[in-house]
């Protein structure tokens, strides 16, 4: 199988262990077409919400696409990190309920489903959720305080998903995966400011290029 066209160069570094390379490479794979955890309705809300929360075109090179929706949906069925807020149901259930809450509020406030809202209106609903002004007191939905807590989980999950993607690491010039190979564990020789080593990626994202441009 030929590698995807947007395969980041860091994956070919000898500063990467085989295990880490396999983990990062798995994130390049074309995602499943069917949701693994969420209902189709909740999945669609998540898909419509993510570009408003964190537009990746601000970070990635043109033509590069990361299916965050599929990754997060799959992650919700995998091993989690060992805790949750006590006022929220288990993660998979909380995400389903939160996304359906957003959809119901969209319908009640604007007469159309969340996915059909203009991006500005989607953003307004997210802002209301994050600042403790959006929620529903009914079965299978989350209340205002629950939505505010879940907003933190959503933001944390998105940050995890993005910062652990090799295409993002390449674009932002992040060398955190390149701690050392299997036969030689190189680590870093230079650790101070303005001392990028040759094997470390340079940022390509315009947003992150300020420092590199000074070299």
């Amino acid at each position, binding site marked *: 199988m030929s590698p995807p066209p947007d395969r980041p160069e860091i994956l070919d570094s000898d500063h990467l262990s085989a295990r880490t390379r396999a983990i990062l490479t798995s994130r390049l794979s074309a995602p499943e077409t069917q949701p693994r955890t969420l209902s189709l309705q909740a999945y669609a809300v998540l898909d419509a919400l993510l570009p408003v929360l964190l537009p990746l075109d601000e970070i990635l090179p043109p033509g590069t696409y990361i299916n965050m929706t599929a990754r997060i949906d799959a992650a919700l069925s995998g091993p989690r990190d*060992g805790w949750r807020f*006590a006022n929220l149901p288990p993660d998979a259930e909380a995400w389903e309920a939160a996304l359906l809450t957003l959809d119901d509020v969209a319908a009640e406030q604007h007469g159309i489903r969340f996915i059909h809202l203009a991006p500005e209106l989607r953003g307004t609903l997210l802002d209301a959720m994050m600042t403790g002004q959006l929620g529903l007191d009914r079965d299978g939905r989350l209340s205002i305080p629950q939505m505010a807590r879940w907003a933190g989980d959503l933001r944390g999950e998105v940050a995890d998903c993005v910062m652990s993607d090799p295409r993002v690491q390449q674009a932002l010039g992040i060398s955190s995966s390149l701690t050392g190979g299997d036969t030689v564990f190189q680590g870093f020789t230079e650790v101070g400011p303005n001392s990028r080593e040759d094997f470390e990626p340079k940022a390509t994202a315009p947003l992150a290029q300020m420092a590199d441009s000074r070299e």
Partner: protein
Amino acid sequence: MNSTTVMKTFGETDIVDAVIIGSGAGGAPLAAELARNGKTVVVLEAGPAFTAMGHTPDEIAARELYWLHERLSAGTNPQAFGGNNSGTGLGGSLLHYGAFMPRMDARDFHLHTETGKGVDWPFGLDELLPYIERVESFIGVSGPASYPWDPTRRYAYPPPPANSAALKMREACDALGLRHADGPAALITRKIEQPHFGTRHGCANCGACHQGCRNSAKSGADNTWLPMAVAHGAELRPGCFAHTIERDTSGRVTGVVYRQNGVEHRQKCATLVLAAGAVETPRLLLTNGLANSSGQVGQNYMTHVSTQVWGEFDEDIRPNRGYPSLTITEDMMRPKDADFVGGYLIQSLGMMPATWGQNLARSTTTRGPAFARALAGYNRSAGMGINGECLPRPENRVTLSNEKDAFGIPKPLIEHSYGPNEWAMHNHAANLLSRMWEAIGAKDIRVIDRAAHMIGTCRMGTDAGSNVVNPKGRSFDIDNLWISDHSIFPSAAAANPALAIMALSLRTADAMLKA
């Protein structure tokens, strides 16, 4: 473990001198000490046996080092466990700890005497110091040639190189007239042959301490105490989740029931040591209804006030590189302008990207291009963070929730709320650290309000009516039950807990050998 060592094994019907539940900072030193003195020891560890070179800097995959049995977090400051959670696997939380290894301040043992608030320890630093020095000497700790707050102290290894955050914090301290030094770090900076383990290499500055050290430079239990325990005849059993403590008609412990690969097993023992941490230790006692005549099991859960302040610089900082938290100042251990009791340590912070991104994401509500710009600032970011005293409070505790886990055991509910002292300390630190960053030109300064570590819940003291264990770690209610972990800390103190846990572990082993 050293590949030439053959581990001794015990039969389930053998009555071993001691079963220890937990193989981390609390259990491992004690296991080694008992075994070295001829006692038969079985260590039950819920997690697997990892190999150092198998660790990965990938933060998502490295969650395998966290305790993953779900915990429910409540209160007005519910703790975001994640990377701050207990560990799992042979070596416990030391597999993923940051190896920042300050000693407890002598004043923190007597906070109540000093201030009328908090709780005193039943002894002072002089009692623990010999054990602290033994721990530092055996596991390997690096530090400066002269430590400004304790010039008599010596470290066996020179510090690793200062990374960008450490250098920036030095500048910031200088700007505000604070003293600073390379902090004590539990890692070695030159290659050694560790007795009973094998080769440990010097720190390679890879920065992934929290994801597991791949060349054994970081001093954990897996490359120090546990190999020593095995060399002296202890058996380590990974993958064993202990859930039931069995007793005879007189109430003394006779054995432990645990699950391994879905099958129940029983190990008989003359003595039981709980070393499962400030959540699992009280959870075991509460589910078994044991050792709680004081009503204190699970009470007085504490953390550290661990406020962070991050800033962006016009330089390529690359916060993933180098030992993450090298620079320390202890000048805030009793600040003159404090409106709180106790004090805090400040350390520089580098950080891996997903952990950093999570902290940023959870502490702000920006979205759209502003959120993307904030994340894109990773390579320009440096942080500082504190570890500060957290007073014991009755509303902070570990109890059993109504929800059961896969074993049919109630999940723990951890309630955690800051009181006035914690908020005052947070505000003091947020203000000071922000001024420090401003003084050296940092931009986009961001305060992250967070708590770290898990402390208390089985308090140690002299009075059986208000403590779970005596000053040596022995249960007041059951004479062959001991606790050796941070659950017995009467107060949180400011220092990161791993060193004191290990020192107490050796001290409790001494007491057990004399009992």
